[in-house]
Structure formats: C-alpha cells, structure tokens
C-alpha cells in the first residue's frame, strides 16, 4: 500500500496524527513564548494561543482517532451482519417439505395441474 493510498484509506487517522503533532508544536511555541517574557501581560497571549490552542488541537486529534476506531467497528458490524444473514439464508430448507401422511403424492417436477381444488 502506497502512501497516497494509505492517506486516502486512513484519512481520519492521518488527520488525527497531524492534529496531535500540530497541537504539540503549538504547545511548544507557546511555552517558548511564555518563557521569553517576564511580564504577565505579554505571557497571556501565548497562554491563550499556545496553551489553549494546543489543547484544542490535541482534543481534535483524539476525537478523530476515536472516530476512526468507531468507524472500523461499524464496518466490522456490517460484515458480521451480512455473514449472519447469509448463514441464516443458507440454513433455510431448500427442499420442499414432505407432505403429511394421507395426502396425495406430490406431482413430478414439470407436471401440470389438471384439477383445481375449491
């Protein structure tokens, strides 16, 4: 599987990893910004953009990763349901049930009915 195919198939997990990586990067930038200033009024913008922004991106990444897992489970349930229905269909009797005792013998295959019951 090539990289392009992997990205197309696992786009949600790729998005999650990108969001997590960006979140960590933003957190790092925010920490660097805060550490280079001695004034609170200069640090607070970094706290908002770097700290909360980084946490926001980490949250989005985690949410996308969990969504990908749930989507996988949903696909597995799809396959399970199809297999279950196929099994149930295969277990149905494909031969005609034998008539009860005392009834007329079944007509041979291909024979035409000559009388009609009222």
């Amino acid at each position, binding site marked *: 599987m090539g990289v392009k195919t992997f990205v197309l198939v696992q786009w949600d997990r790729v998005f999650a990893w990108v969001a997590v990586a960006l979140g960590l990067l933003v957190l790092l930038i925010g920490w660097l910004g805060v550490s280079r200033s001695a004034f609170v009024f200069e640090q607070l913008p970094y706290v908002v953009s770097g700290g909360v922004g980084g946490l926001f991106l980490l949250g989005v990444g985690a949410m996308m990763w969990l969504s990908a897992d749930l*989507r996988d489970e949903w696909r597995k349930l799809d396959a399970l349901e199809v297999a279950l*229905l196929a099994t149930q*269909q295969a277990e149905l009797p494909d031969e005609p049930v034998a008539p009860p005792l005392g009834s007329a013998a079944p007509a041979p295959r291909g024979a035409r009915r000559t009388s009609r019951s009222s």
Partner: protein
Amino acid sequence: MTAVQVTAARPVRRAAGSTGRESRAVPASSSVPWLPSDALRLLVCNVLGLLLVVGAWLGVGSTAQVTAQFGWLSLVVIGFLISSVGSGAWVLTGRRTVGLRLAELLESTPLTEQLLHPAVDTHEPPPAAVVAEDARTASDLLSAVPGTARYHRAGCALVRGKSVEHTDVPGHETSGRRPCELCRPDEGAAA
C-alpha cells in the same frame, strides 16, 4: 445468494438520540454510526469554540492590562468547553450507536440464546420419530473437533462449520471426551 439480497434484508438500525432518551433511525446505507445532525452539531461546536478562542486571543493581545486580559480568558475557557462538549458528544453517540447495533445483532442470533442459556430446556419433548432419529444420530454420527474434550451431535452449533471427526460413543470416551452440555448426545443415546 447475492449481496444485493442480503443488503435489502438488513433491518433499519436504531441509533441513540443526542439526549439518550429517544432513538432515531440510521439509514441502512449509512457507513458511519452517526447521523448528519450529529456531524452538524460537532461542526457547530468546534467552529464556535475555535472562534471564541481566536477572538479571545485577539482580545488578550489588544490590551496590556492584566485585569482586562483575564476577562478575555474566561471567553477562552467557554470556547474550549463548547468544543470539548461537542467532541465528547460525538464520540459518545458513536459508541452508543455501535453498542446498540451489536446488541441487536446478538439478539438476532439464535446461537447467542443457546450459548447464554445452555442448561435451560424450554422445548417440548420431540415426537417419537425424532427421538428415534436422534438416537440413531447420537450412536452413529457423533462429532468432535480433534484435540477437544467434548463430543457433539452432528448438528450441534458448537461444531458447525468446523473440521470434525466422527466416532461412536465408546470411541469418544476412549479418547477421553465427555458429552457436550449443549446438545447432550448422551441423553439422545440413552433414549
């Protein structure tokens, strides 16, 4: 049987509502455990949260007074909470929908009932002809998966689809196997 027939026979899935009190129908063709309204709620919450965070960041950066900046910080917290609630509701709704569908699948499987309640026998006694047939089957066609400790009737769900070997009761007992508690081949043989 074709895949089209199987797909057409699929029941409508029921997904948990956003409040957990009502249920909504998920289309059978849906490939995800969410409704469009769930996606819309996620989008609105995250966009609103992001806008609040960005707006608060601009507000914090526009003033040098710490007291005014802390006012903007409350807006940041609100935005982050809105985004978190939206994402959490998205994941929880998906988990609940997957769980409900799994429960429906398990309920629709007769094997589940047999496995959960193997000792409860609520069936009526079979006709004499069936008992005789079972006795013949139990004495002639008892199956066992090689390497396992139980032998079963030929139609037992626990050996269905598996590679089995057929032996009579003495042969199985010589191999150290005991009768299956689900299909009870020993009772059929006794009858």
